[in-house]
């Protein structure tokens, strides 16, 4: 387990933009999953590991289908934690709240730490309902990564950003995860509003689908989270293709002035 904030800030201080790919736990299957994590880690500052859930209401077709496939293959959300191997790159768990609630918030944190997880992203747990889990996560040394939406009021952004201990996840657009033609015009505004509220790194996610989008987002943000574009490549062509794609994104980001 890594101190996520220190790790990310060391990178941003050196002028590097942050690249956080998302992979779905248990994809392509139980055996092949660890090598996917390893492959995408090469160009990543952290890897977001999705825990498959039966009712992923923030997910578009690509990630929802990946989750269904993982579950059909016998990999549940907690099983993913047992599949993770140690990596030098920090791992973040992206999970809906019910699996955490089901096993118990304290037990979940302990199991996540034991699996090498450094931080938590829980997209259906808004700031009002997350008080207890955030305290437990802090006790276990897990970073908390809150999400800010384009519709969040300035007052809410203040409150949300104050709960962050890893980075702040700026949702670029209204909608679910998925590959999009262009980066939302709202992304830069969300980033600026987050900046006004926090010194934490601010990363843009949802709809960041290409090197071009990543570069556009990083004109204001400290980095990007790329989900569906990575998962689609893992599903269709394998980990090597996802890794090649991330290599291209990485080098585009490194060319940014």
């Amino acid at each position, binding site marked *: 387990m890594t101190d996520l904030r220190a790790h990310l800030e060391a990178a941003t201080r050196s002028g590097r933009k942050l690249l956080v790919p998302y992979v779905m736990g248990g994809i392509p299957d139980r055996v092949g999953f660890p090598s996917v994590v390893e492959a995408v880690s090469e160009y990543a500052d952290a890897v977001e590991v999705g825990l498959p*859930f*039966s*009712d*992923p*209401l*923030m997910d*578009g077709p690509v990630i*929802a289908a990946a989750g*269904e496939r993982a*579950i059909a293959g016998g990999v*549940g*959300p*907690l*099983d993913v934690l047992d599949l993770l191997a140690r990596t030098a790159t920090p791992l973040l768990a992206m999970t809906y*709240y*019910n*699996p*955490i*609630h*089901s*096993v118990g918030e304290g037990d979940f944190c302990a199991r996540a730490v034991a699996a090498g997880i450094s931080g938590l992203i829980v*997209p*259906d*747990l*808004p*700031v*009002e*309902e997350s008080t207890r889990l955030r305290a437990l996560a802090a006790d276990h040394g897990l970073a908390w990564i*809150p*999400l*800010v*939406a*384009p*519709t*969040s*009021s300035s007052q*809410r952004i203040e409150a*949300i950003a104050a709960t962050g201990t890893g980075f702040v996840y700026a*949702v670029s657009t*209204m*909608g*679910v995860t998925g590959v999009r033609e262009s980066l939302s015009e709202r992304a830069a505004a969300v980033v600026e509003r987050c900046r006004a509220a926090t010194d934490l790194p601010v990363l843009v996610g949802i709809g960041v689908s290409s090197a071009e989008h990543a570069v556009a987002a990083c004109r204001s943000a400290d980095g990007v989270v790329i989900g569906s574009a990575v998962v689609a490549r893992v599903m269709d062509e394998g980990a090597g293709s996802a890794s090649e794609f991330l290599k291209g994104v990485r080098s585009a980001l490194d060319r940014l002035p």
Partner: protein
Amino acid sequence: MKTDPVSSAGWFGDFGGRYVPEALIGALEELDDAWNAARSDEAFLHDLGALHRDVVGRPTPLYEAERFSQRVGARVFLKREDLAHTGAHKINNTLGQVLLARRMGKSRVIAETGAGQHGVATATAAAFFGLPCVVYMGATDMRRQHLNVVRMQMLGAEVVGVESGSATLKDAINEALRDWVTNVETTHYVIGSVVGPHPYPELVASLQSVIGDEARAQVVEVAGELPTEVVACVGGGSNAIGLFRGFYDDAGVRLVGVEAAGEGLDRRNGASITRGRPGVLHGARSLLLQDDQGLIAHAHSISAGLDYPGVGPEHSWLASTGRATYVTATDDEAVAGFKALAETEGILPALETSHALAHLLSNASSGTVVLGLSGRGDKDVETLAELAP
């Protein structure tokens, strides 16, 4: 309105809350504010009352089912929501919500539907007010409730089939929430039951409480006394809450909710209170059918409206306090309930409602019973015809 069981943060005891992506919080706060303003606004309440009277046909009758009463041994009064416009209680809620959506300046409405009754009721309200309407419906339900798909389309709604998960009500709600996350700034989501994030469970319960308010006054007038028991079927639980709320303060009145036991309680069923444990689904903490990792189970019921692995948080709260009792009826028992009412009263009830009837058939009861006849069964005749020998 009556005593409010819900706290300002949307909690019924340990159940309820607002577990949604941040993107929806603003819209839920806006809806909560709009509803709180509307419910104390004489003009809004006047408009709603007029819609309930002139469009829905309220008050619906409370009808003494004498031949069915002889069959079950109790004096049974049926609260005839099946006689409401569009054939079920759902219209009470949709007209209220679409009236509210207009007041909020929303230009589009969406809904989920299981049995199709809520979809039809939303499409009706949308047509009445001239708003575009999209209804999400599980592919399985589109097949078994085909009549209602056609009705929605004729009313001008777009019906979108949902193939994911179990392709039933649960998955239709997921898809409606995905639409809402994307279009929340222009769109109102008309949730059809007492489920979802705060303020929906309270909003829908308030709009449906007209059922219980009427029924209480009617039974006192006709029978000269309060009933010993009030019975309704429970999927998400909106008709039951609407009826129960009329009797919350009458401690001597037993409130009984009937869940779907499906193929049996040890097999696939929809009995979230009887067989579930606490969890978070569709924005609220309630009792859910789920596995040991928190994956939501595929429910089963012969009735699409009860084929749901969760239940409204107010029911979980009523169960935890003991104010209401929850029992179950299987698919087969529901079919027997349907036939009994058809034979004795000449009424074809919805298969959902038939679960409540089945409870009276299989549990010898005396005294006076008010039963929520939540909807009519035209939509179910194909399902029943396939079962016929």
